[in-house]
């Protein structure tokens, strides 16, 4: 697992309060238990703080999958190692 995936998984586990959660790129907010709009807010804040990036309000709405987060992070210069 890449460092980026590990960090994302750690964030998802903390926010969704599920230390057994395993995320994959295709996982969406409709599929992952607990990933509701409040969790989305917490995920966005955690990503911003962890990676030192800023999401736009529209990105906060449009990102609905793990791949979506990775793509948005990549567009801000955060890439997998």
């Amino acid at each position: 697992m890449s460092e980026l995936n590990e960090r994302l998984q750690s964030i998802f586990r903390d926010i969704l309060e599920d230390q057994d959660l395993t995320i994959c790129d295709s996982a969406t907010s409709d599929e992952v238990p607990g990933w509701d709009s409040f969790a989305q807010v917490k995920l966005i804040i955690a990503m911003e703080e962890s990676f030192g990036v800023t999401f736009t309000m529209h990105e906060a709405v449009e990102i609905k999958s793990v791949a979506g987060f990775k793509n948005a992070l990549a567009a801000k210069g955060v890439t997998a190692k």
Partner: protein
Amino acid sequence: MGYSSGILAADYSLGSELVSYEELEQRFGAEAMKKVYSGSGIRNRRVAAKGVCGSDLAFEAAERLLDSRKVDRSSIDLVIHCTQSPDYFVPSTACLLHERLGLKKTCGAFDINLSCSQYVYGLSVAHSMIASGIASTVLLLTGDTVSHSVHPCDRALVPLMGDGGSATLLGRTGEHEGFLGFELGTDGSGQDYLKIPAGGYRNPASQETSLEVTDADGNTRSRQNLYMNGAAVFHFAISVVPKTVNRILQKLGLRQEDIDLFLFHQANQYMLDYLVKKLRIAPEKTHFHLENTGNTSGSTLPIVLTEACRAGKVKPGALILMIVFGAGLSWAATVMRWPENAMSAASQ
């Protein structure tokens, strides 16, 4: 340069009906309410009974303020009513309130149509009217019945929203007191994130717009109900508030440590805690009041201001920064020095 102006007194009223945590547990389930409470900090909310309008709540607050402070009604030469739930499309609700409050014929009256940011916009207009000499004493009212626009099975909004009204008396102050400045802002690209899509002139109410739909999260609503994209609005707020605080402080040549009290629109506790932490505000330099009232839209700020007065946190000479944000998307901030001639807070 014109006259200095400031807040002389403020008071509020709430909807008479309690929608309790326990009642919503029955409606939405214990697990859902536990989650909502942990995020919003709102346990109970007060809503207006069917048939009660935002103007009724504003009227009640105004009567309380004018009577308790023995204000001479003939001294008021402008009444401004801020609302997004007016009594009628025509005329302005302020004209109805003018009549009910027995104000003089030479007193102007008009509405301001804004959501949660209405109070600071209202203050900015009232201040401008006094500073320019057009008015000397202004009664600024707020009143909304947001709960009447929310579908009873919208689990995202029902637990958050309450109904309230407020009354604020503004007048001339000493030269270096009252409002020091305002910062206003708008981002119309976010208009769809907090909206009642139908029922106005653009999309008139029809059989089609009254159709109820349940979304993937289990929220039921029609296009005639209030809709909020929580993630968008939350992100908007936590982005715009710190920037606006810094901008107004810079504009006025003030440092954050100069401010004695920060008062925010009381949207939800998680957001407020985040903002206080991000701005590094000491807990004693702010005040919250939403756990048993709910988010009363444009009335949350005058409510929390009144409660901060009652708690002894507002003293003559204190520098107070107030900031609001909401549908539009719209935001506004002001810094004021609490005037020596302000009336003391009325008891509850």
